């Protein structure tokens, strides 16, 4: 590990000033950053510890929505009574993430900034990977692609985004609030993460010098009737193979509003808007109709050699998640 300097910030303006210069990086929970540094994936010159900034970890609920400070820990958000009641998909996604130790450390801001678990990217001895070293090639193209993306990948990178709670936030139309020394801006959640195109080393639209300050989630009946279904190869403490975050509003037994976002399918949470439209007016008890509406939304799915099974798996996950949210599974 290359050496670095370490500084503790106790106010946001100090952080903004400190990272406006190249070579500076924020330390929140450290559960990603330390791994990257040990692996040689990044070698920052200056660590700016933001854990001492008071109020940045606040979780606030109001009638119109929820505001989660960037430094709120995953375990505290998951255990927050109003979050569990009014935004269950967020609490469930968090409780199914990592382990309690990691959730106690990891911040919500850091969670959104985590990078792919592609084994080539994380290799202890560096392998060709455009994310790790732009222009070096993609080892997954001719290699192991079982866990890779179905939607939105490019020849430059096939990787998926590993965050669970990002999928829940995408389903609920959250907004990411960011600040820099030039001011503040709001980024709609679906615009926050990037598809790889020809620059897979950039996972988000966050500009150098920008800091996430909070995540805002609007309240809605669909948020209150929401659910996260995570499919993985172990019962606990494992990243998703595929996942579905759904929110549902019913009139009688008919779907009047629905949100669907998928995890493990792309370099960003994948919102299934076409299925959302097709599901309007369908009875939640009509499993065949649910499945037809979902089927119709996979026109741009592009499975590769070994990950085609994910398409069927995620379709079933969506139907099951809808049924669970609708109290009929």
């Amino acid at each position: 590990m290359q050496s670095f300097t370490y500084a503790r910030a106790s106010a946001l303006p100090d952080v903004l000033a400190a990272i406006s210069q190249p070579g500076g990086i924020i330390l929140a929970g450290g559960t990603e950053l330390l791994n990257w540094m040990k692996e040689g994936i990044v070698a920052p010159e200056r660590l700016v510890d933001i854990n001492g900034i008071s109020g940045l970890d606040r979780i606030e609920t109001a009638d119109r929505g929820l505001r989660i400070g960037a430094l709120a820990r995953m375990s505290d958000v998951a255990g927050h009574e109003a979050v569990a009641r009014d935004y269950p998909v967020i609490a469930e996604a968090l409780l199914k993430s990592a382990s309690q130790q990691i959730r106690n450390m990891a911040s919500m801001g850091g969670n959104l900034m985590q990078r792919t678990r592609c084994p080539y990217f994380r290799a202890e001895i560096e392998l060709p990977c455009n994310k790790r070293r732009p222009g070096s090639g993609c080892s997954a193209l001719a290699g192991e692609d079982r866990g890779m993306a179905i939607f939105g990948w490019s020849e430059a990178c096939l990787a998926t985004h590993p965050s669970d709670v990002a999928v829940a936030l995408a389903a609920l139309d959250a907004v990411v609030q960011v600040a820099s020394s030039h001011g503040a801006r709001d980024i709609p959640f679906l615009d926050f993460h990037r598809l790889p195109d020809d620059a897979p080393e950039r996972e988000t639209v966050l500009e150098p010098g920008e800091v996430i300050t909070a995540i805002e989630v609007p309240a809605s009946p669909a948020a209150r009737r929401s659910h996260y279904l995570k499919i993985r190869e172990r019962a606990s403490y494992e990243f998703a193979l595929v996942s579905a975050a759904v929110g549902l509003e019913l009139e009688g037994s008919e779907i009047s509003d629905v949100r669907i976002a998928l995890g493990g399918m792309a370099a960003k949470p994948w919102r299934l808007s076409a299925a959302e439209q097709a599901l309007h007016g369908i009875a939640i008890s009509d499993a065949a109709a649910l499945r037809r509406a979902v089927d119709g939304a996979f026109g741009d799915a592009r499975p590769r050699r070994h990950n085609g099974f994910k398409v069927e798996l995620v379709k079933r996950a969506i139907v099951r998640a809808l049924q669970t949210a609708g109290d009929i599974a």
Partner: protein
Amino acid sequence: MSPIEITRRALLEGTAATAMITALPDHGASAQQTPTGGAGESELMVRLQINGKTHSLDLDIRSTLVDTLRERLGLTGTKKGCDRGECGACTVHIEGRRVLACMTLAAAAEGKEITTIEGLADGDTLHPVQSAFIGHDAFQCGFCTSGQIMSAVACIREGHAGTEADIREFMSGNLCRCSAYPQIVAAVKSAAQIQGI
């Protein structure tokens, strides 16, 4: 030792430390840059509160808490398994919450109350969770055990030890290579009952 490990070690030791700690403008931090040694090389003075005792140490800024506990303070009860946040062997409490010492920079733990397995017993009287692990044979080789116990103490305190399913879920961050899981679950369950939780 595998060639991979040699490589990693070489990387870790290869670069000279040019460490320093600073407080950002106008806001205090207790840590200070304390230049020691020769040109361009400096270590960092860090004060750690561990099991009720304060330790002042000159540290390489890159030191993790697990390495500091083990290599500098001789507190080898905390184990280092994966060093990547994956196994839970290094679980300690910071401010009463269970966290991973391999994912914590020692400098970042300054000023916080740290508890390790060595700080759990009350003199010669074992903590109820320690006794429960012995009573239920909840280990074989013992490598994961201090992490399991630190995790279990917090798990019970959090109220996540009410059912076996809860225990299994909320203890999933502690892997046991010997697979003593049924005994671990039994030990945690009985300790939670003894503590009336």
